[in-house]
């Protein structure tokens, strides 16, 4: 799988793409493969405060339910509502159309603690 260079990755298998102080958050291709057929996505309401490394919601596959850990801290300013009707999009476009939430980051420097595409690739390569 190709992990885009313009994203930063967490060891919990989320990604973030930043534009100014807005971070768009999703789960990685590795995460969706581990989960398998995704049936539900639970996302926070607009205005919810999230913290880096803390749960911001959950994603559920036929097999199991997993927490989504926020890769950055801040406030939820947009939620990808299309996933409620079509959660399976997460299996097909995890790095694109199936983004989860947008966060107004309170500490944009946190992104520096995340992995580059190359480092994440190495990390999941070593893990499996």
């Amino acid at each position, binding site marked *: 799988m190709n992990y885009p260079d313009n994203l930063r990755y967490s060891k919990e298998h989320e990604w973030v793409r930043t534009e100014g102080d807005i971070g768009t958050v999703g789960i990685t291709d590795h995460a969706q493969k581990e989960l398998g057929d995704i049936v539900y996505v639970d996302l926070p309401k607009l205005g919810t405060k999230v913290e880096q490394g803390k749960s911001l919601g959950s994603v559920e596959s*036929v097999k199991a339910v997993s927490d989504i850990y926020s890769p950055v801290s801040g406030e939820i300013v947009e939620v990808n509502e299309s996933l409620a009707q079509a959660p399976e999009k997460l299996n097909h476009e995890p790095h694109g159309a199936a983004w989860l939430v947008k966060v107004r980051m309170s500490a944009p420097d946190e992104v520096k603690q995340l992995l580059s595409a190359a480092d994440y690739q190495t990390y999941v390569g070593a893990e499996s």
Partner: protein
Amino acid sequence: MAPSVALKRTPLHAVHVSMGAKMVDFGGWDMPVQYSGLVDEHLTVRKAVGLFDVSHMGEIEVRGPEAVRLVDYVSTNAASRLHVGQAQYSGLLYEHGGFVDDILVHKVADDHFFLCVNAANQEKDFEHICAANQFDAKVEFASDRYAQIAIQGPLALRTLERLTSVHLASIAYYWFKDGTVSGVPARIARTGYTGEDGFELYVAPAEAPRIWNELLNAGRDFGIKPCGLGARNTLRLEAKMALYGHEIHASITPYEADLSWMVKLDKGEFIGRAVLARQKEQGVRRKLVGFEMRGRGIGRDGYEVRLDGVSAGWVTSGSPAPSLNKNIGLCYLPVSEVRPGRSIQVMVRNQAVEAETVHTPFYKRAKTA
């Protein structure tokens, strides 16, 4: 991450890895949980044919003039009523009536029974049976001599018949024949754990990779797919087949698990009989029942079940049902509440989600001629 204890491998392990299966630790075994995807594999078994490696399952042979007396004494069903070539589902119980394991008993000859047991329980089962052996019977731990491949689905027979001269149509459900598959000895049993027609093949471990590949080739034009334990679990749940450690365990009796048909109290003495006889007379307090989620959510194994807001039981298995487009599950409830159409609440991550008890099995295959 490196496991702290080396995982056990089946004779097909290298085949799974080379075919790109996703492998997981399943009770100490490194097993394929999925190949093409759980839902795809599940639907392939319902509509066509799927192939499963179940070589982690254990085998125990009981031989000798009093083999039948030993098997009858350690199990709930009546081995003494089996014909040669017939198999039955049965329970190994403790004296207190709880399950040691659930097993398949095959009668190979008047003095020879072949037991298929759960992977994680095989050593425990063997010790349990040996400890009860006050008869002229010989108990042998035979797991190392068998690989087991399950071929399941409406096209299983037509696939398998390309590799054997055994007349498969004449093997009735829960009967078996010893013959050859791909030219090597195989026990061919018309049994399974999916709710579909199909066969379970017991073969020598060294032959398993070749037979696996030949079955995949033989079923190619039927759309055969290798399947993992993930699909095996959703298939068995739709058919309401029990899974040890979930629906049944040491604190659950067959009557509680809605498995009264595997208990033959009139066959004579057996381990656990006294408790079961009392339960039959006085009734049980709790019982297994199926449910469908009505609200948004999936009741998973271990989740609390409430009745009118009061804690009343627990979920033993729960999942989306790929054939039914519903979220289904099994749970224990007080026996007075076990009737279809009862409104229940499943606690899904601290939220009460509405569900309703239903008739089971959730899925039943259409009978063909």
